[in-house]
């Protein structure tokens, strides 16, 4: 038979456990309240972690050149465009030059799935169209068509293909911006041989990016590296519908003085006009890259507001590309800043920068000329890098979190 002291001990242990559980329950409730209060008071912003294993290595010893466009289609497949061999040094493309076994430039247009597998790949000169000298910007529209711009010397046109690379439409004529008397084939990259034509109804001036509005079936061109305007065309026919410059002014190609952060804002866009993306509430956000600003317009070109970012940035500017968050209201804008090597997280209503992540460097999560940015349906971000960056990276969305740091630096997996 169990002795009384043993029974008393069991009762004491049982009572102790019950007391411990009660204390823990109270502590948990208090902490839950604290967490809720903290989350209500703090500014919250999307948090990301780099995915160092995405995408998978390319086949065929292929390497990327300067990677200057990214978009995510309705299947959450990631499309990039890059400049391939034209931006690879000889020691990067020995296989192509037949001087060694590594490597060769990949085809310019590449499609990846969510697992990082390379799916389709195509691009380059072909029959019936003029491939850009320096391709720039990629967009997959609501019908699944792939649009490509170009910022090479004579590039004054935009191309549309199917997802398999079948040519559908060329809008504008290559070489339209060449100065009268300047010979084709020489100094094609020389700006001196070309002149802006921001009021041309047929051709363009080195288009940086395309965005197609499914509601109106209109394509918005960020036009561009030579012109200083937003141009809107019919997405089926390519027929020009309207265009405008900074503040909704009639664009003027007169060269502007060098950017001065202390000077009043320029009344025209600087080159390049680098993005023009339409939000769900039908506001157009335009990147004046070197002007360090985003200008917001109605689809008809009426100026709404503007905001400046890292205003002291000179040279190539701080507003390179934008992507909207994928919540129904698109509450946030992500701004690629290829000089300061960060992605800025901006409140779309106030246009105020909430926080930023990234840093210069070559490790995952760092940047060398972060040039383009896009978001997928799960809220993940994709960036591409130009110059010697030459890569695409994925940043995994980790939910909304209170902002604790303005500059988060490299968002390594598991870091806070």
């Amino acid at each position: 038979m169990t002795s009384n002291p043993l029974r008393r001990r069991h009762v004491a242990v049982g009572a102790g456990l019950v007391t411990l559980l009660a204390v823990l329950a109270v502590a948990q409730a208090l902490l839950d309240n604290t967490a809720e209060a903290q989350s209500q008071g703090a500014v919250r912003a999307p948090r990301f972690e780099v995915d160092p294993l995405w995408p998978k290595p390319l086949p065929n010893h292929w390497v990327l050149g300067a990677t200057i466009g990214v978009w995510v289609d309705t299947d959450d497949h990631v499309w990039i465009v890059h400049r391939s061999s034209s931006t690879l040094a000889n020691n990067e493309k020995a296989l192509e030059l037949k001087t060694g076994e590594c490597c060769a430039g990949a085809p310019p247009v590449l499609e990846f799935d969510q697992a990082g597998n390379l799916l389709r790949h195509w691009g380059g000169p072909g029959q019936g169209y003029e491939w850009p000298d320096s391709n720039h910007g990629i967009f997959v529209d609501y019908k699944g068509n792939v649009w490509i711009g170009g910022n090479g010397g004579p590039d004054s046109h935009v191309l549309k293909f199917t997802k398999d690379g079948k040519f559908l439409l060329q809008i504008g004529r290559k070489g339209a911006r060449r100065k009268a008397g300047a010979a084709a084939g020489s100094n094609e990259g020389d700006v001196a041989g070309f002149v802006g034509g921001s009021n041309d109804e047929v051709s363009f001036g080195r288009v940086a990016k395309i965005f197609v509005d499914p509601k109106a079936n209109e394509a918005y061109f960020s036009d561009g590296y030579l012109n200083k305007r937003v141009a809107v065309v019919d997405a089926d026919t390519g027929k020009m519908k309207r265009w405008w410059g900074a503040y909704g002014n009639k664009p003027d190609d007169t060269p502007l003085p060098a950017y001065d952060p202390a000077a009043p804002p320029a009344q025209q866009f600087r080159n390049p006009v680098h993005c023009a993306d339409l939000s769900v509430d039908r506001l157009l956000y335009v990147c004046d890259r070197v002007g360090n600003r985003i200008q917001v317009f109605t689809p008809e070109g009426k100026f709404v507001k503007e905001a400046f970012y890292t205003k002291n940035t000179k040279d190539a500017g701080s507003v390179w590309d934008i992507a909207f968050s994928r919540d129904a209201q698109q509450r946030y804008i992500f701004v690629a800043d290829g000089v300061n090597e960060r992605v800025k997280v901006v409140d779309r209503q106030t246009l105020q920068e909430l926080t930023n992540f990234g840093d210069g460097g070559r490790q995952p999560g760092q940047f060398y000329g972060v040039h383009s940015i896009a978001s997928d349906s799960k809220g993940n971000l994709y960036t591409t890098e130009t110059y010697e960056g030459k890569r695409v990276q994925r940043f995994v969305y980790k939910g909304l979190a209170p902002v604790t740091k303005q500059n988060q630096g490299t968002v390594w997996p598991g870091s806070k």
Partner: protein
Amino acid sequence: MTGVHVRLRALLIAVLSVAPAPALAHDIPRDVTVLLFARPEGQILRLLARVPLKGIMDVEFPRRERDYVDIPRADQALRDAATAWIAGKLEIREADRRLPAPRIVSVRMSLESDASFGSYDAALAHVMGPALPPDTTIFWEQGLLDVLLEYPIQSDGSRFAIHAAFDRLGLSVLTALRFLPPGGSVRAFELRGDAGLIELDPRWHQAALRFVRLGFGHILEGADHLLFLLCLVIPSRRVRTLVGIVTAFTAAHSVTLLASAYGYAPDALWFPPLIELLIAISIVYVAVENIVGTSLSRRWVITFLFGLVHGFGFSFGLEHTLQFAGSHLVTSLLAFNAGVELGQLLVLAVLVPAMGLLFRFVVAERMGAIILSAFVAHAAWHWMAERFEVLRQFPWPAVTAAGLASGIRLLMIVITASAVAWWVSVVGRRAGADGSADRPHSALRRAGRPADS
């Protein structure tokens, strides 16, 4: 998909890929996603399907310039495609009776950006609504085929099963199926390739049987769980004693498996590597205990504690399978555990006699136990080192109120489970003591006795 199909498809792709580019009329797409809604209402089961046109072979869609679909003339081709590639690939059963071929109520071509298949009501309105404007420019391979099918049924309360054989639409086919039984609930399934016949509203015993099989297979394929089991067998081979210990293990991992299924496990990147590391540590610990000859009277306690850890490990393997549980989540989880238990008993049935023979004819028991345990400890030590390297890549998580609250919830579950186990052991001991004259060894007392005592 059979191996023959895979080889034929690979051959076809190889032949197509060496052909000149212009001859590539239609490649087999690599990834295809099919969306399905199935909703029984009264005497009709409505099935809404969305399939990308790029996966459909042998149907010529009328085209105009630049291979844009000639929408006004496309209706018959869409119906042909719906008959051959959707209705013809579906088998629906009502209480084990195969339903006859369905009526094709409506077909539509849609743009790939169309979002109406986000819900049943929106999809139904879309398929029954106006067609695309006739002048829409849509490249034929970039369109979607939307279909509404109706099957005659006897009752919307019947049991339904579906076999969606869409695997020939692409190299990798994902079918996202949502079943909407009467009552407003929605049951979601993600099926890869040809997943066979799936019960849409499984009875408890059908769900349970599936999970018993899963649990049985899971323990037999898990090298670390098996090594843990081996360590338990080495010093003590009394079957009834071992059943007690193994039951403590199963009860413990049931608790954490249920906790994980109900969302009480930390949802952090570092958590799975931490559990994997703790599993390796559990093996090292028990192996070393075998070598140093620690008393086995309290082994069920340590087995119970490590069982809590292994339960989290099991939950990682179940993440994608719980969709088949229907409304029987708890039943299915317990069935999974029962399968694990059966698997463990099978392993014991093999190991115990094998150990007995080994220690009788090959090596002395004590020496054999030390050698075997040393081998196991060596293997597990390597796992431990490798898993620690993985875990240490994650920095210490920041201490937040929400994180602490989550940790305390988990701790409460562990304490409660341990308290119940302790209480059972106390009651068992008391019962054993009370009836010691004619029942000298209760199961729990035997579980607590050293094997060689």
